[in-house]
């Protein structure tokens, strides 16, 4: 049996038969500039336009954080399930992308304190028999054999795999794709955070749909995380301390709560413990 390192070498040399690594360490961002990885396709958290400008709650949190740290913000857009690998490859300094803090992710990267938490919910057609379900256990058992859409690599996907493994899970790279399939009837239910689904219900193609009145919180199952945090690479302990302090202040003075009101019409900020 080959050791892991050995295999690593073999595959890399095979893929890059002629490209050699130069031994240079990856360059760090310029001093005084903070580069932030975000998804860019997750309204109202993170929306990127054709020119690459990012708006949304994540962008607001990023800008508030940069102002507090007296640094210049620079956003980098990256698909959600590639954010952690890209952070580890030093493509950017931190992740702000509505990312929940989970045990699995903590093995890969560090997180700041949780600064927000949002309920996770299901959306179904108004005439679905699931529409009237009121408690979570009934809901999870009645998903048996039904198709449910989730976004790939999210806590929602991991939660479904763990708690509703008898449901047929469809994973999508983006929420848009999931919503297109929900609207066309290819999936019977979608599971995501309530803000993202609220956005869908407000669109023309969401008019025949509604929430199932069950709020799934991280207190119900720890796979759903410990709130939403800023992802920081494990080597960068100094930055983590500064970000934690800044976030706690921003939550305490109500700045994050205000940004939350703008985008979600409700305060989802989570006080520091």
């Amino acid at each position: 049996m080959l050791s892991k390192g050995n295999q690593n070498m073999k595959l890399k040399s095979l893929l890059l038969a002629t490209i050699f690594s130069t031994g240079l360490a990856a360059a760090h961002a310029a001093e005084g500039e903070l580069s932030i990885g975000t998804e860019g396709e997750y309204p109202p958290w993170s929306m990127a336009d054709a020119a690459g400008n990012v708006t949304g709650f994540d962008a607001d949190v990023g800008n508030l954080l940069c102002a507090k740290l007296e640094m210049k913000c620079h956003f980098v857009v990256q698909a959600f399930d590639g954010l952690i690998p890209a952070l580890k490859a030093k493509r950017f300094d931190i992740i702000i992308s509505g990312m929940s803090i989970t045990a699995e992710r903590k093995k890969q990267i560090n997180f700041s304190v949780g600064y927000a938490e949002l309920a996770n919910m299901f959306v179904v057609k108004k005439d679905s028999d699931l529409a009237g379900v009121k408690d979570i256990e009934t809901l999870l058992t009645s998903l048996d054999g039904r198709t449910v859409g989730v976004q790939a690599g999210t806590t929602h996907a991991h939660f479904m795999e763990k708690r509703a493994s008898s449901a047929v899970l469809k994973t999508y790279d983006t929420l848009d794709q999931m919503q297109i399939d929900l609207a066309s009837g290819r999936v019977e239910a979608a599971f995501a955070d309530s803000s993202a689904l609220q956005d869908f219900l407000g669109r023309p193609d969401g008019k025949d749909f509604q929430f199932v009145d069950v709020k799934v919180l991280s207190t119900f199952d720890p796979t759903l995380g410990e709130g939403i945090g800023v992802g920081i690479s494990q080597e960068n302990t100094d930055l983590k301390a500064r970000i934690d302090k800044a976030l706690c202040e921003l939550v305490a003075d109500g700045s994050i709560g205000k940004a939350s009101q703008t985008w979600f019409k409700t305060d989802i900020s989570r006080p520091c413990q």
Partner: protein
Amino acid sequence: MELGLWQVWEGGWISAILRGAAITIALGMASMAFGAVIGVGCGLIKWARIFPLTLAVDFYTSVVRGVPELLIIYLLFFSSVEFVARVAAAFGYEGLAGNGYAFTIAVVAIAAISGAYSTEVVRGALAAIPSGHIEAARALGIPGRRIFRRIIAPQMLRIAVPGMNNVWQTTIKDTALVSVVGLQELMRAAFVGAGSTRHPFIFYFIAALVYLAITLVSQGGFDWIERILRPRTRK
């Protein structure tokens, strides 16, 4: 209007798609160029049967040609590829800002794929050169390097053109796969537009037309090169 032609025009998506097409072409050309370098190197190794190296080349070409391109792209995308950062730094992408990182991963992945196919084309072209030509040149006492430059390389180039045309067509189509790593090329532009306007049909239809235009125009280009390189014989 169900098709959403108006939304495509109004949202400024046409220019986003054209920008994407430019990136697709740049990506295709860069990958093809690196792939051709890999192809000539590995093709020569295979043709000359340089012993331990042929095994490595065989392994490389059979794995890359047998495993789906998408899986190879996922490998490079998900692994915390420090070497991509290093390669990028070596080429002067210091901060890895914007599209530089995604572009580098994409070029590495597509060039590795295109290189494997180029290797076979080059090897085939080298094998098709009549051995009499090389023997005659040796008999005339022409030095080895000049034999390569005057006899082998020109013939190889000419024989390899149709094969390289095939590799190019495959390469330009393979670039669509890197839309999954988030590079803003043609397919990604269509993908984002389709998601945000909820009119996927028109966006993918336009993307298909643009790809078709690229492949047809480049096909014409290759036909022209082939005509130029055809040996002039007396009738």
